[in-house]
């Protein structure tokens, strides 16, 4: 998990923004849920995200990546956000943070 460095860092702002996005059926944000596999930022303000969804049948499969992109583009320093969806590795409950598992009562 990304540990926050300092608030000026674009990576930190990206993580904070991702923590505000939810898969509508699950009361845990997509970052702590473990849907985000990679975050890459450039000094020119481009953000690349590789993410997955809880399953290919996920009802928000069409809308969630767009929502992520929109949320990231609200960050002042971000000029462009690109979201790619991957199925490798498939999402698994073990990818959730422990706080998220606790929240969902999975312990």
């Amino acid at each position, binding site marked *: *998990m*990304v*540990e926050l*460095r300092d608030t000026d*860092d*674009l*990576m930190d702002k990206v993580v904070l923004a991702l923590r505000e996005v939810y898969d509508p059926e699950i009361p845990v944000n997509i970052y702590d849920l*473990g849907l*985000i*596999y*990679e*975050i*890459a*930022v*450039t*000094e020119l303000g481009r953000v*690349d995200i*590789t993410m997955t969804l809880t399953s290919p049948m996920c009802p928000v499969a069409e809308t969630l990546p767009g929502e992520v992109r929109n949320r990231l583009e609200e960050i002042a320093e971000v000029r462009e956000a690109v979201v*790619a*969806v*991957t*199925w*490798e*590795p498939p*999402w*698994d409950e*073990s*990818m959730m943070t*422990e706080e998220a598992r606790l929240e969902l009562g999975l312990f």
Partner: protein
Amino acid sequence: MSESSHGSWIDLHREAMRSARPAGPDFLEPLRAAAHARFRERGFPTLRQERWRFTDVSAVAETAWRRAAEGEGETALPLEDLHADPAAYRLVFVNGRFSASRSRLPGAETSFSVQRLSALNDGVLEPAARRMAETAGRTEEPFALINSALAEEGVVITIPDHMAVLVPLEILHYVDGDGIALHPRVVMIVGEQSEALLIESYAGKNGQRYFTNPAADVVVGRGSKLDHYLLQRESASAYHLSYTRATLGREARYRRFALDMGGRLVRHDLEVELDGEGAEASLSGLYMPAGRQHIDHHTTLRHLQPHTFSRQLYKGVLQDKAHSVFNGRIYVAREAQRTDAIQHNRNLLLSDDALADSQPQLEIFADDVRCTHGGTVGQLDQEGLFYLRSRGIGADLARQIMVHAFAGEITGGIGLAPVRELAEAVVNERLGREE
């Protein structure tokens, strides 16, 4: 050991490799030749050498190890049970050969790179090639030279700048075959302001006698973070001699955890260079040898720049006639003012025949530093045992509780939950077995 036997099987391996079709990119061959020549000058270490006086490698030197045959071990069991993290990207090697069907590589969407050493093309991986050449040219470690001379396969991972890879990368080596030697290589280069998790896992079919000789080259760039897990669960008859060199840039953070359960004779040589202001290294290890297992950690921390920070905590639980060695060397360069280095090694002996050797070694050339070290060897606290037993807990369970508490200081600090759970399960299993 006679002069003529020095490295005889290595010479044969070298010959076999040269006559085979070229394995891997062109840059490897001069590197192998140079490492081979340097190894031939020095030969295998003996008990007369200070750094090897507790660890006798004559059995490794005198065995005529062989390369695994093509396809050997293909039928090895499915290895899912050995996965440290079910959700990781995974590269699985059986008898040193890549097993595509057991692996799970990152998809084309990813912008970091994971490649096999044998499939690299020259040019693409210049930083990795340069790093390997540098290590081969300067290391004094005999088993690092053997690896450089004979490495045919390995994994090269490059993480670009400003990137967080949140899915762990796991490399699993499994051996199924008597008399096999393998020399796998890992090169992990993390750019600046990036993050990654690396799991190196070694295991083998129980009862098999083989020789694993891994080497890892790690570079953590400015402001980056790398967590590195080493899980050694070799066959109880295997030899495992590893070398790791990690170089940390400015404000880089490197965390490493090593779990040693298997192996007849195990030695890890670890060198960490804190080569940037504010660099941090946290190293921990847990080893639980039983029977006649021998486990040896030699760590060297080189504090080369000011304000560098290192923590080491290695703990051992020894049963039967097991022997452990810990040698921790801390070097502080003249420029490295405000170095903060702490090293601890604690050993718990569960039998009268077990033996733990612990040696700190400080070489400090700066005058404004904090360096402390401590080594302890002891038995289970009788008062603690009595306390538990007086509350109606049986003798075996009371011992297990005490050992758990001792090991828990290490396992509890493991950041990656699946690895932590695995370490705890392995500790339980080892304690359960002795009943």
